[in-house]
């Protein structure tokens, strides 16, 4: 890393996240100006987007090679009052909370109170959602049965394909015009709606070109004032680049990166999409530019690396938008889930790893930034060289890249009805979510607390935390005469809450489609232009809605404990067990020890427990799979937690496997922390008993102490482990390579471990930025030592 990159990286690392009022102010100005009143909603949104890009302050940092910031400075983070209008109390919490805080100035507070709140309070999507969903939805939400992604953030979860490397926005405008010309107002009752949407896209295209042109101008000014001839020339080249892209297709490596970055900023300025946005298969996209520029002598390998490193810093400068309340709990991080995909296969099914794959991996290793996150897609055709290079980086203890099974991803997408080309060109984004890049809106609707459903079942529909009856009366737990009866009751209860969740999501999807279309994003995702439909209104080629199951290990072990102790061995009665749980095991030490020690647990390749896990999976799958959404697609499941297993655990009392109340649940498809006692192969075998192909992603975390991976031999064994898991159709695996002692020391002396990055759950984060309970949980996760 050269001095320039070091400085840019340091600037990014040391910048304090703060709230920038710029976006909220400009948006409020625009909507207050009356311009929005006489146009359609999509056109108004596009004009607002244009107003933002016309008027936002430009930020060009010293020494930068890729330009453009979402806010007026690195980590100056905007708010989205049209989505979630923060109260002053929200601002205070953001400002003062211990983890993932944002500085809020007095000026910002004043502006929020005097200008922003009066215009947006009561009209934000968040306000609309809470006033329009059923009361039973609100009750279940408040009880912690599920979360809702779209109450503070826009439908996101999409990734770009290769289209921007082939087309400029002038070309996209031509496509939009062609689509407008094709509208048939005689036969298509939606033609005028489509016209509005397409016009909005056209305005959004102008907006991004204008934004680039403003940068070109500013760069020219800076060049004129620059005394250092080398930097002057650089600034002139950058101005030239910003004059070309994104209006035109990129012609060079540098242009390709700058083009993507403008698009990225456009997406995250238009709305606060969850997950941010993502260039996807970057090694494939960049290779042609790299090869050509190297051949013509326009670029050196060293310069290419420098440009990529500068590009990496830009991601790290954009923290996830500020989140409050449950949303902050479920995703307690600055990370905005941009997941660079490396490797995989091409549309013809051939291995896609190339020279750029290895360069990107070098950049990842050297930059050691939390953002962007990265992953390697491993297919059966991927060379060992690729996987080994990834493992070499993983063993440095940085938690990146994570590893994905291309062959499983492709099968998942084919099962959902995607074309084989679209499937092969896809990958994963966010934590572990599978999608057809550039062609799919695969929205995560919220986490679902499977274990809470059991707690409510055991209490005959009552939530023991509040005493409220929020579920069905499925029978007194002590009257069940068999495990099967209990499981039937659980299934009924599960269906009940899934119905409530999906009913709510139907309302929420329509609110977004109606009030907050995303014309800029719609330009980027096929087939919005062709169909004249917005991304948020079913314009994408594929439209999937996911419900993410959390706590598979916890629900399995709970049910296994009941089955084993109460029904099979009959050494504990249900009444005893319920009493002990009610007392949080206080005064029931012996019973608790037996529950902890003797229960067959998930994660040990033991069919007793794993069979129950499979039954839970099937019940969850059946309750969600294939239900229609309003965007022409279907609801499906995946299994991942981000940090929601901590929140979900906090709303649940004692559990039958001896866990005391409020502790975190298991995360992803990993076993309950400490339940796996037979080593990593047993964990992988248990996890592989899930039918991954019927999900849209599963998350498996494995922690290794560094010793395991020190030798080349150890690395090879790890490769075998990964390959074997993927042979069994495992979707994803990630490794934490740290010792529990290191983590404990970091907890005690956070200031000495500021750079300690750990894998949390589908992403890496600074350990010291995590909440204490999450820190403790990561420490507890089973360490697999030397055999």
């Amino acid at each position, binding site marked *: 890393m050269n001095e320039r990159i070091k400085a840019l990286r340091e600037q990014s690392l040391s910048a304090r996240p703060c709230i920038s009022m710029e976006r909220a102010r400009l948006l409020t100005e625009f909507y207050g100006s009356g311009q929005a009143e006489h146009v359609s909603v999509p056109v108004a949104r596009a004009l607002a987007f244009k107003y933002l890009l016309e008027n936002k302050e430009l930020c060009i940092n010293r020494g930068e090679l890729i330009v453009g910031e979402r806010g007026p400075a690195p980590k100056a983070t905007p708010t989205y009052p049209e989505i979630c209008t923060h109260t002053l109390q929200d601002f205070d919490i953001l400002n003062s909370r211990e983890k993932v805080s944002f500085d809020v100035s007095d000026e910002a507070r004043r502006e929020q109170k005097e200008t922003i709140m009066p215009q947006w309070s009561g009209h934000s999507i968040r306000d609309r959602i809470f006033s329009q969903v059923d009361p039973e939805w609100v009750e279940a939400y408040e009880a912690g049965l599920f979360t809702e992604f779209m109450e503070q953030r826009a439908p996101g979860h999409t990734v770009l394909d290769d289209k921007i490397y082939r087309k400029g926005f002038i070309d996209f405008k031509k496509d939009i015009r062609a689509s407008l010309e094709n509208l048939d107002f005689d036969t298509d009752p939606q033609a005028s709606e489509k016209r509005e949407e397409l016009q909005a896209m056209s305005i959004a295209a102008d907006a991004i070109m204008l934004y680039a042109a403003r940068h070109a101008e500013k760069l020219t000014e800076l060049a004129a004032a620059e005394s250092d001839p080398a930097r002057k020339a650089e600034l002139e080249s950058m101005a030239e680049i910003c004059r070309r892209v994104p209006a035109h297709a990129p012609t060079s490596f540098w242009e390709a990166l700058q083009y993507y970055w403008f698009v990225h900023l456009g997406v995250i300025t238009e709305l606060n999409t969850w997950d941010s946005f993502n260039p996807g298969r970057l090694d494939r996209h960049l290779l042609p530019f790299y090869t050509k520029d190297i051949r013509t002598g326009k670029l050196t390998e060293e310069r290419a690396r420098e440009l990529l490193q500068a590009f990496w810093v830009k991601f790290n400068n954009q923290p996830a938008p500020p989140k409050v309340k449950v949303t902050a709990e479920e995703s307690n991080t600055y990370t905005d889930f941009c997941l660079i995909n490396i490797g995989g296969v091409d549309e013809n099914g051939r291995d896609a790893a190339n020279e750029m794959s290895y360069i990107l991996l070098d950049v990842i290793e050297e930059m050691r930034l939390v953002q962007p996150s990265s992953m390697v897609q491993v297919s059966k055709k991927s060379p060992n060289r690729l996987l080994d290079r990834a493992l070499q980086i993983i063993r440095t203890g940085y938690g990146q890249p994570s590893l994905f099974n291309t062959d499983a991803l492709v099968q998942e997408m084919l099962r959902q009805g995607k074309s084989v080309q679209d499937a092969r060109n896809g990958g994963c984004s966010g934590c572990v979510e599978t999608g057809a890049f550039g062609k799919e809106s695969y929205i995560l609707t919220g986490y679902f607390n499977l274990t809470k459903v059991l707690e409510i079942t055991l209490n005959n529909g009552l939530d023991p935390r509040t005493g409220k009856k929020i579920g069905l009366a499925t029978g007194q737990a002590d009257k069940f005469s068999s495990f099967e009866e209990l499981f039937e009751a659980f299934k009924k209860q599960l269906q009940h809450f899934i119905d409530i969740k999906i009913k709510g999501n139907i309302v929420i999807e329509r609110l977004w489609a109606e009030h907050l279309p995303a014309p800029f994003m719609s330009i980027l995702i096929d087939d919005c232009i062709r169909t004249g439909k917005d991304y948020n209104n079913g314009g994408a080629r594929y439209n999937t809605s996911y419900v993410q199951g959390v706590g598979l290990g916890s629900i399995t072990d709970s049910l296994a404990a009941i089955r084993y102790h109460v029904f099979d061995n009959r050494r504990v009665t249900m009444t005893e067990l319920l009493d002990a749980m009610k007392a949080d095991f206080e005064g029931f030490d012996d019973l608790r020890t037996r529950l902890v020690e003797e229960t067959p647990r998930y994660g040990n*390749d033991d069919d007793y427990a794993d069979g129950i896990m499979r039954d839970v999976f099937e019940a969850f799958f059946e309750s969600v799979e294939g239900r229609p959404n309003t965007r022409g697609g279907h609801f499906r499941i995946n299994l991942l937690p981000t940090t929601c297993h901590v929140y979900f655990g906090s709303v649940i009392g004692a559990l039958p496997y001896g866990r005391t109340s409020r502790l975190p649940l298991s995360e992803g498809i990993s076993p309950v922390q400490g339940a796996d006692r*037979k*080593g*990593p*192969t*047993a964990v992988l*075998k248990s996890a592989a008993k899930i039918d991954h192909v019927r999900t849209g992603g599963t998350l498996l975390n494995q922690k290794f102490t560094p010793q*395991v991976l020190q*030798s080349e*031999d*150890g690395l*090879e*064994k790890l490769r*075998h*482990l990964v*390959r*074997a898991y993927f*042979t*069994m159709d495992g979707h994803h695996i990630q490794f934490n390579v740290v010792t529990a002692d290191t983590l404990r020391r970091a907890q005690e002396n956070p200031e000495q471990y500021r750079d300690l990055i750990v894998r949390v759950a589908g992403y890496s984060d600074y350990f010291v930025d995590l909440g204490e309970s999450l820190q403790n949980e990561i420490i507890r996760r089973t360490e*697999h030592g*030397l*055999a």
Partner: protein
Amino acid sequence: MVAQQDKTGAIFDIKKFAIHDGPGIRTTVFLTGCPMDCWWCHNPEGRGEAPTDPTAKTRRVTVAHVMEEIEKDRVFYDQSGGGATFSGGEPMAQPEFLVALLKECRRRQIATAVDTCGYAPPGDFDKVADLVDLFLYDLKIMDDERHRTYTGVSNGPVLENLKLLARSGRRIQLRIPLIPGITDTEDNLESILSFLDDLPAVRRVSLLPYNRFGEDKRKRYKLPVRLERVRNQSETEIEAAAERFKSHGFDVKIGG
């Protein structure tokens, strides 16, 4: 006659993801019983010395039970060229059980390794030799008197069996524990090398540096600790020992 699958034997552990007991990812089955009593023993529970330790669960199991556990990780053996390793204790201390396990593995095409101290009647090695893909063969002390002191038995059968296996073309990986002042002495290593001069078929050797794991375990089991003041070797000392073997044409590995 008892069917092969129903034969029983005593084991004290089955360990998965064993990555230092032969090639690839393996499952190691620890059979109870050992004729030696080495001062540095890591597995005193394998001699039935620590019946009270909860982690040392000596139990009688059938061949079928052991095979069920071994089968579970087949996908990992296939991927890594691994298999099952029989260790102990001393697996040769239960020859009939071991033969039954080895036959089952062969029938199911699971590669096998036997980790042995070499102290067993030669006839027993004859019985297993054809069924084993790799012997992990321990060689400790060449001087018989000292061998008796530190292991409790003569090294005569150990050396004889090694010759027998080597001369009949078995794959052998020698394992030499480097116990400071006991096995890692100049004298002992030179004697080992000159003994091996006559066995050109044995050219793979693992040097196992000393660690205090065995002592900690003995303390935990409240057994007398006999190597209280032994220190760990330095990297340089380990390297020097490795060089000594390399210069004689050996393929040397440090650790399992």
